């Protein structure tokens, strides 16, 4: 029935005590929020039910929490909540009155547990939301394409500086990481491929393995994934924070079109730069593969080159390059769309930035799968 005060409190007044004295329950000491950490509420309540009034003349400190508890106790006394507390100073009376006016409503009961219907409703809402999001994104794509078309018809509307700036950001600055990544992939392919092919004495086919897998799939796919992580997230964060600070709304009121100013240059820059990055990745992957084949299998660079030229159809390269602008469009649209969806709070910025990366990578892989089927059907 006692409570400790924290060591930090400089006041020497003692912990709160509840003493029953005939019909009175005398409360003494500090009844503050700290006391509630160790206070036995039920014991005090039991004492209160047997008392007529609560005497708080000996109370040295009382805060909102204390005032609430005194009201709670007073309700249980025979005198009732209204007159159950005696001995309060003016300040204490005022605080008790203020707390009394702000008690939670009586009917604030537990929320009923979720039923199956609620879960179904939630599921339905989510499906509907996903559907409307997909629709919104398609309409956003249409808007961007329409604006792109307008820019093509009126090239003077194109923000050339902005396009160049974004080309630098998403393209030139990504060259080192993309080249290194592709080089290492080439190395790994050569190493793993040679270990397997050596069993059949077919080491020299490692050239075909490297060339086809890198040119056709890996070069561009992995480049797209890196760009999605690097630039897609940057698009969302940049546009999202502009949205948060109402810059986008300011643009609209000035008669500027945010799609033309912010989104078209970004998407265009990606469409220009992703094929270039893919090409760099291809070259660098082939170099990595060639070096590893030389070390591991003794396939000299000259042999590698001649086999590459004679045995690998140029369509493998074309297939990779055809996919690049589509991947760029996917990454750009998703990154910008998620940025435009950012609301007023910082939380949504973070959530949508990560959603943008995940979604862009996922959609790139889906598109890659669709392209595989398409190219298989047309037979290249």
């Amino acid at each position, binding site marked *: 029935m006692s409570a400790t005060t*924290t*060591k*930090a409190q*400089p006041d020497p007044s003692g912990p709160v005590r509840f003493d029953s004295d005939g019909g009175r329950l005398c409360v003494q000491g500090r009844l*503050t*929020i*700290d006391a*509630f*950490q160790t206070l036995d*509420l039920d014991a005090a309540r039991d004492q209160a039910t047997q008392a007529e009034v609560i005497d708080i003349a000996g109370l040295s400190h009382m*805060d*909102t*929490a204390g005032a*609430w508890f005194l009201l709670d106790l007073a309700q249980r006394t025979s005198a009732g909540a209204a007159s159950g507390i005696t001995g309060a100073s003016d*300040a204490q009376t*005022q*605080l008790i*009155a*203020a*707390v009394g*006016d*702000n*008690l*939670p*409503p009586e009917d*604030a009961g537990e929320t009923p547990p979720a039923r199956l219907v609620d879960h179904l409703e939630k599921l339905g809402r989510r499906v509907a939301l996903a559907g409307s999001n997909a629709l919104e994104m398609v309409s956003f794509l249409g808007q961007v394409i329409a604006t792109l078309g307008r820019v093509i018809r009126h090239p003077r509307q194109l923000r050339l500086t902005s396009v160049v700036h974004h080309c630098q950001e998403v393209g030139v600055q990504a060259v080192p990481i993309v080249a290194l990544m592709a080089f290492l992939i080439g190395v790994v392919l050569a190493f793993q491929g040679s270990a397997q092919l050596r069993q059949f004495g077919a080491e020299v086919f490692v050239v075909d393995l490297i060339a086809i897998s890198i040119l056709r799939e890996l070069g561009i796919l992995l480049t797209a994934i890196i760009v999605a992580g690097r630039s897609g997230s940057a698009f969302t964060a940049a546009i999202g924070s502009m949205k948060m600070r109402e810059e986008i709304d300011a643009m609209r009121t000035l008669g500027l079109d945010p799609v033309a100013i912010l989104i078209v240059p970004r998407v265009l820059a990606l469409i220009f730069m992703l094929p270039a990055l893919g090409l760099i990745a291809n070259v660098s992957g082939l170099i990595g593969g060639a070096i590893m084949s030389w070390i591991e299998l003794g396939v000299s660079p000259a042999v590698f080159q001649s086999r590459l030229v004679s045995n690998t159809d140029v369509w493998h390269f074309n297939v990779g390059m055809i996919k690049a602008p589509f991947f760029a469009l996917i990454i750009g649209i998703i990154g910008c769309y998620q940025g435009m969806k950012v*609301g*007023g*709070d*910082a*939380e*949504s910025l973070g959530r949508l930035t990560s959603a943008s990366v995940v979604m862009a990578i996922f959609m790139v892989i889906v598109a890659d799968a669709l392209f595989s089927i398409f190219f298989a059907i047309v037979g290249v």
Partner: protein
Amino acid sequence: MTDEPIIRVRGLVTRFGTTVVHDGLDLDVKRGEIIGVVGGSGTGKSVLLRSIVGLLKPAEGQIEVFGKSVRDTDADHYRALRRRWGVMFQDGALFSSLTVRQNVEAPMREQLDLDDDLRALLAGIKVRMVGLPDRALENYPSELSGGMRKRAGFARAIALDPEIVFLDEPTAGLDPIGAAAFDKLIKQLQISLGLTVFLVTHDLDSLHAICDRIAVLADKKVLAVGTMQEMMDLDHPWVHEYFHGPRARAATPVADRKETD
């Protein structure tokens, strides 16, 4: 009410790079008063507030709160000190990932080991005390209006029944009716909770309505401290312009002409 000031600032010097914001600033705040701090933009009102609560380390000078230095103190000490004040930032600075109830519970959760139900109940009382409706409890800050966010920020500042509350422009951006209601709320809670209020404001109505004393920051110092009447009578160009300017209560036709100049 003892004579010993609850906040005592002596010889405060604050610099950002080569810019000197405060140069030998002195200020005393008495226990139980509402002190309004005014000053032009860039005179370091918010910087002063941030220095007192220990968010900024001043270059020189002494800041004592409850007779203890804020600056030269260890972490435990600072933690104990911090419990005894609450701060409300300009736009409430609510945690956007938490509901209003969770925001108000946050200091209790951090500082105390309380039962969940009790904590929710006490948070509910605080939220009602600042005049927010019950349905706001489960709302996220982004779902609230600016005025409601400020009220919720105030509720969080008083969550632990602090002895001092620091309010940074509580009425800025509120409509006159909302601002007046907020003033009333501050006064009312100051009386019922026995608060000392450190109020940074530009709102002349607030100064008139609730401040016991006013401190004017200018020329990198506290230029003057005193009641509203003393400020009105003070003979300093900036102070005169501020309290007698076109937007002040005592607006005169002369002042009106000044505005159109």
